[in-house]
């Protein structure tokens, strides 16, 4: 969980930073999207790096989901009879929503790729440039798409708030002071990431971009 999750977090930050290019200008954003396909050229043929990176991501996502599934099955087996008085959540809310949060994020990623990468579910889709798709997605009339993005990104925020800290603990973090520090850093990183991601749809909806 910790190793595959760390790779996913690195991707999330790189992706969020790339998205911010839309504030520089739509042409720059599209240029960035095309550049993604050219990374590694001429060492690698065009598009190869992107595909290598995609396979790496798929592997990380696969391992992450596999480990989560094993843990969930073990947890179900470890408590065959449920409490009739449902236990109160005493620890953190973020920690107790990891499983459903993860499922929501996975569904979002599928929708998101069909929307912005392949364009199938995008209002404009087809041969349009990435910036045109983003702008079409988050137009005020498409508020429900924007809402879904917001919910998904906030779910990612909760997931990382517990996930980043938990990964640090799994790697052996063991002092109480370090625990407070790791929790604060996890919260800060999650808030920053959510803000980076949400800035794009909000800017489009409010007409600041496009």
């Amino acid at each position, binding site marked *: 969980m910790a190793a595959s999750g760390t790779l996913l977090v690195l991707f999330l930050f790189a992706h969020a930073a790339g998205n911010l290019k839309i504030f520089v200008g739509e042409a720059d954003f599209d240029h960035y999207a095309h550049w993604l396909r050219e990374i590694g050229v001429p060492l690698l043929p065009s598009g190869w790096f992107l595909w290598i990176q995609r396979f790496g991501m798929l592997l990380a996502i696969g391992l992450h989901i596999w480990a989560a599934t*094993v843990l969930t099955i073990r947890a179900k087996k470890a*408590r065959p009879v449920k*409490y009739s*008085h449902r236990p109160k959540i*005493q620890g953190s809310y973020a920690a*107790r929503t*990891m499983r459903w949060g993860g499922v929501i994020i996975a569904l979002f990623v599928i929708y998101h790729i069909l929307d912005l990468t392949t364009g199938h579910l995008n209002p404009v889709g087809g041969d349009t440039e990435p910036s045109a798709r983003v702008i079409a997605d988050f137009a005020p009339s498409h508020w429900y798409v924007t809402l879904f993005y917001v919910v998904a990104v906030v779910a990612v925020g909760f997931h990382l708030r517990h996930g980043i800290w938990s990964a640090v*603990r799994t*790697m052996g973090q063991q002092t*109480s002071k370090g625990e407070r520090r790791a929790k604060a850093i996890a919260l800060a990183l999650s808030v920053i990431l959510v803000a980076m991601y949400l800035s794009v749809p909000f800017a489009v909806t409010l007409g600041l971009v496009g």
Partner: protein
Amino acid sequence: MDIKVRVWRQSGPSAGGKMVTYDVKGISPDASFLEMIDVLNETLILNGDDPIAFDHDCREGICGACSMVINGVAHGPEKATTTCQLHMRKFSDGDVIDVEPWRAAAFPVIKDLVVDRSAFDKIIQAGGYITVPTGTAPDAHATPVPKKDADAAFEAATCIGCGACVAACPNGSSMLFTAAKITHLGLMPQGQPERDSRVIDMLQAQDDAGFGGCTNAGECTTVCPKGIPLSLIGRLNSDYRKAITKR
């Protein structure tokens, strides 16, 4: 105080069980939770009913025998307190209180609220010991231990093996218990020879016993009557990583 309790009744390990409601009248707010059950049991016996079976021994919060999930919280609403040290003044007149046993596959119900916690003994047998020469007891100061380590080891050693951590864990994991033992023994010079094999063997024993895997959810430490901190699980993880990379 007049209250109602809904208690898990199960006549034997393989019998089905259900929650049964009882009225308990005229209980002193200064009675402990177990004394309240004692009073209820006396009425049940006088009526010719089977009294509620529950574990208890010291009744002073040091043995780890008592074990009830009260309104969904292991050892009840008061923090850092065993069920035997919980008093009825923490509840209000007219309350309906749900009482259930620890719920875990590794802790099967024997009867009513009594569960079999010998899975913890299996974990201890796998590595929760040190090897010492027998004979006369060594002088207490024969092996110096830094004060800081002695204090931290002592804090971990306050774990009474009650199993509340397992009962509260959404994964049914015993990681906090095992981490307390790993820390307690691993901080002492006497615990070093078996340090690597201890963590590997105890984790294996806990998996074999049917406990779930830890996801750092942190529910355990909030119910632990001894306040064993979650950070000890980080120490266990670190010991485990070192032990498997050495192999």
